[in-house]
């Protein structure tokens, strides 16, 4: 059954895009700038896992936790060294975007310099023969990825809805001025959400590393898909970005029914383009959240 197989492939791809997109969109929702270097941090997360698990030979779970902590720390470092000074200068969003592209290239080439260009793999969960579901094939590893992503996204949703910090973050995302008036330290919340977002990139990197090969340029490919998913769903909305990512995964995979598989990326960008033109706020983003830059 080709439909089932394409659906399964779409969900697997969508899970990975969603992992990248949530952190990206969490950062955007409070900080209001496009942090394309987020993809670089996903690659950093994957390489950190490789460093601790394969090179140092640590226990897998300890390696994973270390990788997440170090990712979060690096996020803090980049935010303090680059973004805070730029924000202090009142740099426009476009400047921050260009700086983030610079950071993406910087991270990618640092990985290349440190770890070399050859492809790395993490052999923690062995690839086994796939299981058949309604005529489609899915490997146990892919089931693990899809389920873990689901649990993680659910936890994040509960965190954003129920916890005090999550509520504060949503308040800042909604209206910075109002949040400041009622005594929320918006700057601190921006800081915290950047660090949490980068730690999420680390987690994404770990899960991606289990399924795919690790290579320095992986971050660019992933962030393109992640931010496409985020824009489709509504860039400042975390649930929107999750929805958009799964939608992107499905559209891409059903698209290769009609076009050669090499066109997956072109399908994704065309979708991105259509949304940027006709509905820049995305599916779940409210009209008010897409702010016209001041003239």
């Amino acid at each position, binding site marked *: 059954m080709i439909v089932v197989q394409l659906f399964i492939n779409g969900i697997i791809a969508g899970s990975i895009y969603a992992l990248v997109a949530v952190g990206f969109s969490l950062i955007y929702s409070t900080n209001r*700038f*496009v942090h394309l270097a987020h993809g670089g941090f996903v690659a950093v997360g994957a390489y950190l896992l490789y460093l601790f698990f394969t090179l140092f030979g640590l226990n897998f779970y300890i390696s994973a936790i270390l990788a997440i902590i170090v990712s979060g720390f690096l996020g803090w470092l980049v935010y303090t060294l*680059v973004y805070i*000074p*730029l924000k202090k*200068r009142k*740099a*426009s*969003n*476009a*400047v*921050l*975007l*260009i*700086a983030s*592209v*610079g*950071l*993406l*290239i*910087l991270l*990618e*080439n*640092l990985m*290349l*310099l440190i770890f*070399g*260009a050859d492809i790395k793999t993490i052999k923690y969960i062995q690839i086994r023969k796939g299981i058949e579901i309604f005529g489609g094939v899915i490997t146990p590893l892919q089931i693990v990825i899809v389920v873990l992503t689901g649990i993680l996204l659910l936890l994040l949703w509960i965190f954003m809805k129920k916890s005090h910090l999550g509520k504060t973050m949503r308040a800042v995302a909604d209206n910075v001025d109002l949040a400041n008036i009622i005594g929320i330290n918006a700057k601190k919340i921006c800081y915290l959400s950047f660090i949490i977002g980068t730690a999420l990139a680390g987690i994404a990197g770990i899960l991606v590393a289990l399924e795919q090969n690790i290579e320095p340029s992986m971050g*660019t490919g992933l962030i*393109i898909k992640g*931010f*496409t998913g985020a*824009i489709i769903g509504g860039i400042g909305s975390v649930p929107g970005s999750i929805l958009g990512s799964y939608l992107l995964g499905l559209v891409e995979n059903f698209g290769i029914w009609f076009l*050669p598989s*090499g*066109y997956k*990326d*072109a399908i994704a*960008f*065309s979708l*991105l*383009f259509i949304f*940027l*033109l006709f509905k*820049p706020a995305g599916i779940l983003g409210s009209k008010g959240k897409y702010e*016209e*830059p001041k*003239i």
Partner: protein
Amino acid sequence: MIEAYLIHLLIIIGIYIILAVSLNLAIGYTGLLNLGHIAFFGIGAYVSALLSVNTKLPFLLIFIVAGFLASIFGYILMAATNKLKGDYLALATLGFNFVIYSLFLNWTSLTRGPLGIPGIPRPSIFGLIIQSNFAYLTFVAIVCCLSVGFLYLLVKSPYGTLLQATRDNELACKVLGKNTFKIKWQALAVSAFFAGIAGSLYAHYITFIDPSSFSLYEIILILTIVLIGGLASLKGSIIATIIILLIPEILRFLALPSSILGPTRQIIYALILILILMFRPRGLFGKVDLN
């Protein structure tokens, strides 16, 4: 030996000066934050390469066609993104770049995909074949001077003032009865035209092109050049091209292996870009801020 190396460097610098000044026309003078400039460069290179390998058309015609096709894409991009501003425009143009890149990579029946197009002939103009690198340098220098001269006259003309007015206050221009969409697409089409002919020059010089010559790295390089030189300053772009392209050449004398040389070069560019945004956003000779 050293002469051949210098000639090669000068040819590359000449091509990048055309790219940089034309991008400055879009970003600096017209205020269109276009991150898709390399796509126009690539379109020019591919059109020129495909036409000269597959047809017997004269070089000068191919050269002009490469520029015009790129400028048609410039019009399409502007028509599509007219409503967008600031970081949304930057994202859309970056997306445009990725679409074109993936077309180069995947439209294998036309572009041969990752294999690239080898054996692009050196140009011949009215029977005169530009074979040696020195002759090619002369040709690049002439095209470069003409391009810079044209853009200089353009930005100094009343039309150039109109471009800058559109950048500074689009609404006010509309109030005065100016068709700002027309002004913007014209500026982007001119900018794309020069990127296209720069692509053609590049393709016929290297005689081989593949998609990797038109990747995200090239965008960073050209953006760094324009930002260092300063927005709305042609002089700045020219000087910055020379500085930025010469910096990594110093590394060559350290005799580093190529596996270190490549990434180091990109790290230097990325660092320069971030530092210039942080500490001197107006660049060397910039007249306006990036918005």
